[in-house]
């Protein structure tokens, strides 16, 4: 691996990499998706606290380090900001159920499955050529506005520094009011 191929998330309100991802300041499109075969999660249910929305290409896909497993370890960090963590990919709810059980994930992982990738398209992070989403991060504020977004190269686990910086910024803004 070349040392220069991996980028670190920008700490600004950027949309990153010249991508089509919805930028900061945009209202986060609402959606309702299955988190398990018999449970549905609606984004607007979380109004009043920040949401970390983490799109990833596919369950079981290999990447340098497992991004969802990493975020699972960081749930308590996100919870300190009162933030809700939601994973999302185009896999179906049964696939997610097996994936979450195998990786011992303790946060909702949403199935953007039917129509396939509809929510990824709404957020501007669908990869038509692959039929999956980008590896894209959105931090949504308590009012449902996108505060920070970032698209990582598909093969690179972006870590959580950008998310934590965005959540800290939101907290400072809230405290400053």
């Amino acid at each position, binding site marked *: 691996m070349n040392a220069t191929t991996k980028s670190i998330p920008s700490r600004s309100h950027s949309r990153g990499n010249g991508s089509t991802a919805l930028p900061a300041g945009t209202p986060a499109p609402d959606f309702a998706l299955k988190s398990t075969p018999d449970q549905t999660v609606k984004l607007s249910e979380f109004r009043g606290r920040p949401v970390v929305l983490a799109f990833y290409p596919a369950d079981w896909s290999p990447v340098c380090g497992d991004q969802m497993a990493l975020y699972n*370890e960081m749930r308590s960090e996100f919870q300190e900001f009162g933030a809700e963590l939601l994973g999302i990919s185009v896999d179906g709810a049964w696939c997610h159920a097996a994936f979450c059980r195998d990786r*011992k994930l303790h946060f909702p992982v949403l199935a953007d499955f039917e129509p396939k990738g509809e929510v990824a398209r709404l957020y501007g992070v669908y990869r038509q050529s692959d039929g999956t989403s980008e590896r894209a991060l959105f931090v949504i504020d308590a009012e449902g506005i996108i505060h920070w977004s970032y698209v990582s190269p598909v093969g690179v686990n972006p870590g959580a520094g950008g998310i934590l910086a965005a959540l800290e910024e939101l907290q400072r803004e809230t405290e400053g009011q």
Partner: protein
Amino acid sequence: MKREMSGTIPESALPMPDRDHIQGPPDAPIMLLEYGDYECPYCGETYPVVKAIQERLGDRLCFAFRNFPLVHSHPHAQHAAEAAEAAGAQGRFWEMHDMLYENQNALEDEDLAEYALSLDLDAERLLVEVRAGAHTGRVRQDFRSGARLDVNGTPSFFINGVRYNGSHGVEDLLAALAGQPVR
């Protein structure tokens, strides 16, 4: 929920001699920081690589280790990290650090106590501290600092404060440490 003050979390990716466990001169020209997990097989594979690099660079290198236990994947990683910190409280952090990486497949509490005994440490004190969570906060601080520095798995290295994303081979790491482009 009100967050606790973040002042105790190291924000720098440079080794902090007053806080971190370091080997080598604190004013060495080359600073290498590792975020590691004692139960992670990749860290185990990289452990002899770091040893070889330390051997080669001698006093030109200052090496520091911070904990980044992935406890959902590695159920023994947290207690192992705390055992190394507990050994550190008895002045023998690096001996326990090495012992753990050399025995990655045996990290039950009883094993930790056995390693403490073999290092002539007060094993009972070590086990009591581990079980009471005396060093949980310290390990957590390390983890939180890593999360903010985009550590995305283990091992993760920082050279003179800058993330290193190359291979974990001795020659590639040495080239990066010497400031040469990695092949």
